[in-house]
C-alpha cells in the first residue's frame, strides 16, 4: 500500500516549509519512526520522522524547495510495489517542484575539461563535430578532444576522424613526445579543442571566483611507511600510490566540511551528499579529471584500482562520461615532478581544489632539535563566496589527521 508523505505542519503558524535535506534517498528502506528528512521553517530546522514503513518510492520535491503545508513531498510504498503516481498524487505533484534547474545530462558532452559543467556555460562545452564524425569516433574509440577539425569553424568532420584513426602519432595520450624549439623556426598550430575548453573554463573560474589559498605542510612519514607495507602485500599492478592515500584522506576529511564539498549556483549553495573526488590527470594536449565516486566509502585498494583503471582509459583515449563527470572536490598532484608547492585553479562549480606537492626529506625542528623528516606541502584554493579562511584552515588541519595517522584510512 503506497502512502503519501505530506509537508507537515510543525508550528501553529507555519504556512510552508522548506525541504532542507533528504535523509533517506529514493529506494532506501525506511521504518516507521526513521528520520525521513530535515524540514526548515522560518524558525528552525526540524527532523521529520516517517509515519510509514517500507521503501522511499519517490521524493516528490527536491532539496531546497519550499511548499505549503499539506503538499505531498514523498511516497512510501512496500518493497517491490509499483505505484501510479498520477493517480495517487495527482499530476501536479508527479512533476516535482524544483528549486533550481538541474543541469541536463545530455548537455554534458563526451569530453570536458572539468567534471561538472556550469549551468550557464554550455556553449564552450560543446566540441563541434558532425554527427557522422561523432559516430565514427565513438565506434572506433577515438577521442574527439584531441582532433583538430578542418571543417568550417573548426568543426571536426569525417575526414578528420578518419585521418586520426589512421595515423598513430596523432593518437591521443600516446607518448609525451615533446617537440623542441628549432632555432629561428616559428611554429603555428591550432589549439586543440581540449586545450581550448580548459582555457575557457579556467579563465572563467579565475576571473569570477574569489580564490584564497592556504598552504599546509604534512608529516607523511607514516603514510609512506604504510604504503610500503601495503604494497609488499599486493601484486605489482595493484600497488597503491601516495595519491590514492590523499584521495581517501581528503574524502574522509571532507565529511566534516560540507561547505568544501559544495557547489554554488547563484545564491544557492548545494552541499553534496556524496563525496566524489576528482583527480587531475595530465594528457597529451591538456588535462582531464577522473572521478573516484564516494571516495569516503571505498577502501583504499578499491580507490586505487578504480583510479588506475580510469587513468588507463584516459591514456588510451577511451575515457567514458562516467569517468570524468560528477566530482565534488578535486585534487591535483604534481608530486611526481619534484614540485615543492603550487596553487591550482578551482574547477568550477566546486568549492575548492587541493594542490599537492612532492613528499621530500627536509630538515625539521622537533622540540628544538634538528632532525630529518618527510614533509609534503598541500595548498588548498577555496572559493571565498562559499567558505572562509578559518574553515579552510580547519579543513587542512583536519586533513592532517588522516594524512599523518594513516591507520584511520583503513578504519
Amino acid at each position, binding site marked *: 500500500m503506497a502512502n503519501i508523505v505530506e509537508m507537515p505542519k510543525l508550528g501553529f503558524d507555519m504556512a510552508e516549509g522548506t525541504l532542507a535535506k533528504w535523509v533517506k534517498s529514493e529506494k532506501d528502506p525506511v521504518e516507521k519512526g526513521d528520520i525521513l528528512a530535515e524540514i526548515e521553517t522560518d524558525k528552525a530546522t526540524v527532523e521529520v520522522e516517517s509515519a510509514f514503513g517500507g521503501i522511499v518510492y519517490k521524493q516528490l520535491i527536491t532539496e531546497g524547495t519550499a511548499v505549503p503545508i499539506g503538499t505531498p513531498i514523498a511516497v512510501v510504498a512496500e518493497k517491490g510495489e509499483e505505484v501510479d503516481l498520477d493517480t495517487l498524487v495527482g499530476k501536479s505533484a508527479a512533476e516535482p517542484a524544483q528549486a533550481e534547474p538541474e543541469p541536463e545530462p545530455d548537455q554534458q558532452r563526451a569530453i570536458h575539461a572539468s567534471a561538472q559543467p556550469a549551468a550557464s556555460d554550455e556553449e564552450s562545452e560543446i566540441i563541434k563535430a*558532425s554527427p*557522422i564524425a561523432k559516430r565514427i569516433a565513438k565506434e572506433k574509440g577515438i577521442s574527439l578532444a584531441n582532433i583538430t577539425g578542418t*571543417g*568550417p569553424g573548426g568543426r571536426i568532420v569525417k575526414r578528420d576522424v578518419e585521418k586520426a584513426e589512421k595515423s598513430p602519432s596523432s593518437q591521443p595520450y600516446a607518448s609525451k613526445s615533446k617537440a623542441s624549439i628549432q632555432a629561428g623556426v616559428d611554429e603555428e598550430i591550432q589549439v586543440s579543442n581540449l586545450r581550448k575548453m580548459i582555457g575557457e573554463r579556467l579563465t572563467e573560474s579565475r576571473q569570477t571566483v574569489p580564490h584564497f589559498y592556504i598552504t599546509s605542510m604534512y608529516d607523511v612519514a607514516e603514510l609512506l611507511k604504510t604504503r610500503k607495507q601495503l604494497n609488499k602485500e599486493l601484486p605489482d599492478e595493484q600497488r597503491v600510490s601516495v595519491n590514492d592515500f590523499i584521495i581517501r584522506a581528503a574524502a574522509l576529511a571532507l565529511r566534516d566540511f560540507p561547505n568544501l564539498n559544495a557547489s554554488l549556483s547563484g545564491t544557492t549553495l548545494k552541499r553534496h551528499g556524496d563525496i566524489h573526488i576528482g583527480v587531475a590527470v595530465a594528457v597529451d594536449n591538456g588535462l582531464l579529471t577522473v572521478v573516484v565516486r564516494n571516495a569516503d566509502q571505498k577502501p583504499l585498494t578499491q580507490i586505487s584500482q578504480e583510479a588506475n583503471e580510469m587513468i588507463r582509459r584516459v591514456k588510451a583515449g577511451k575515457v567514458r562520461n562516467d569517468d570524468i563527470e560528477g566530482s565534488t572536490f578535486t585534487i591535483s598532484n604534481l608530486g611526481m615532478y619534484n614540485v615543492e608547492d603550487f596553487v591550482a585553479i578551482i574547477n568550477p562549480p566546486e568549492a575548492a581544489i587541493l594542490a599537492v606537492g612532492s613528499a621530500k626529506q627536509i630538515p625539521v625542528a622537533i622540540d628544538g632539535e634538528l632532525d630529518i623528516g618527510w614533509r609534503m606541502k598541500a595548498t588548498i584554493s577555496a572559493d571565498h563566496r562559499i567558505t572562509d579562511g578559518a574553515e579552510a584552515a580547519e579543513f587542512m588541519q583536519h586533513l592532517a589527521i588522516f594524512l599523518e595517522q594513516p591507520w584511520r584510512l583503513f578504519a
Partner: protein
Amino acid sequence: MAVITMREAISQALWEEMERDEKVFIQGEEVGVWGGTYAVTKGFLDHFGPDRVRDTPIAEAAIVGAAVGAAMAGMRPVAELMTINFAFVAMDHIVNEAAKMHYMFGGQFKLPLVIRAPGGGGRQLAATHSQTPDVIFAHFPGLKVVAPGTPADAKGLLKEAIRIDDPVMFIENATVYQQKGEVPDGDYTIPIGKSKVQREGSDVTLVAYSKMVYYAMQAADILAKEGIEVEIVDLRSLRPLDMTPVLTSFKKTNRAVIAEEGWRSYGVGAEVASRIYEEAFDYLDAPIQRVAQKEVPLPYNARLEQMALPQVDDIVKAVREVLK
C-alpha cells in the same frame, strides 16, 4: 531510342493517350486553334476535333472546375493552365475540390483529371508571370504533383498521370521546352512518386527536380573537372515524395545540396532537408545547402532577373561549400 525535346515528349504523350482512350480530352486557353501558347497542342484540333480539343474562355476556375466535374462524371480531362501563375485563379478547384472530393464523399467519386501548367522565370515576363510555386500544390494531401526534369520522364509521367484515377498537377518549365533527351520507343509509363538517380557520384548528393536537373547536369560536368563527382537525384514527383534514393545516396556521401527554382523559404529544399536530418542524422557531415531563387519578386530587367534566379554556378558553389 529517339532524341526529342521536352515539348515533343509532352505532346506525344498527350497525343498517344488521346488516341488510346476517347475519354481523354483537352481544354484550356488557346489550346485548339492557336495550337497552344507553347505549341504543345499544335495539330491536335485538326486531328481530334473541337469536342476533344476545347478552347475555353479566360476563366481558370471554370477550366479546372469543369474538368473536375467532367472527371467525376467519367471523362478523363487534361486541363491546361496557360501558365502556373494563373493557377491561383483556380486555386479553390485545385486544392479544395479536386484534391478532396474523393476523401470527403467517402470514396464515391474518382477524379481522373490532369492539370498541366508550365512555370518558371527567366524570360523577362516580370513578377506575376514568372513564378515557381510548386510547393504550394505539393502541400495538399489528395493531389499528386509531378514535375519531370527530362523528356523521357515527362512522356512516361504524363501518360501515367492521365491513366490513373487521381488528380495530378503536372508542372512543366516554360523555358526548357527545347531541352533534348533520349526517350524510349513505344508505349511506356513511369510510376508517380518515384525519385531517380540521374547521375551517379560519390562525393555529394545533389537533389533537384524540373529545370534544376538540367542545371545540375551542367554543374556536375564542371565539378567533375575538379575531381568532384556529384550524384544527382531527381525527385520527379513532389507528392508523393520519394526519399529512398535520396537517403541511400546521402548515406554514401554524407553531404547534400538541394536545388530548386522556387524561393528558398518554405520550399522543396526545406522539406527534403528536414527529412534528411530526421532520417539520416547520424550520416550528416555538413549542414545541407539549399540553392534557390532569391527572395524577391522577379524583376523585368534581364540582368537583375538572372541575378535572382538560381544558376548553374550557384549549384557549383554550393557543392564546393558543402565539401568544406
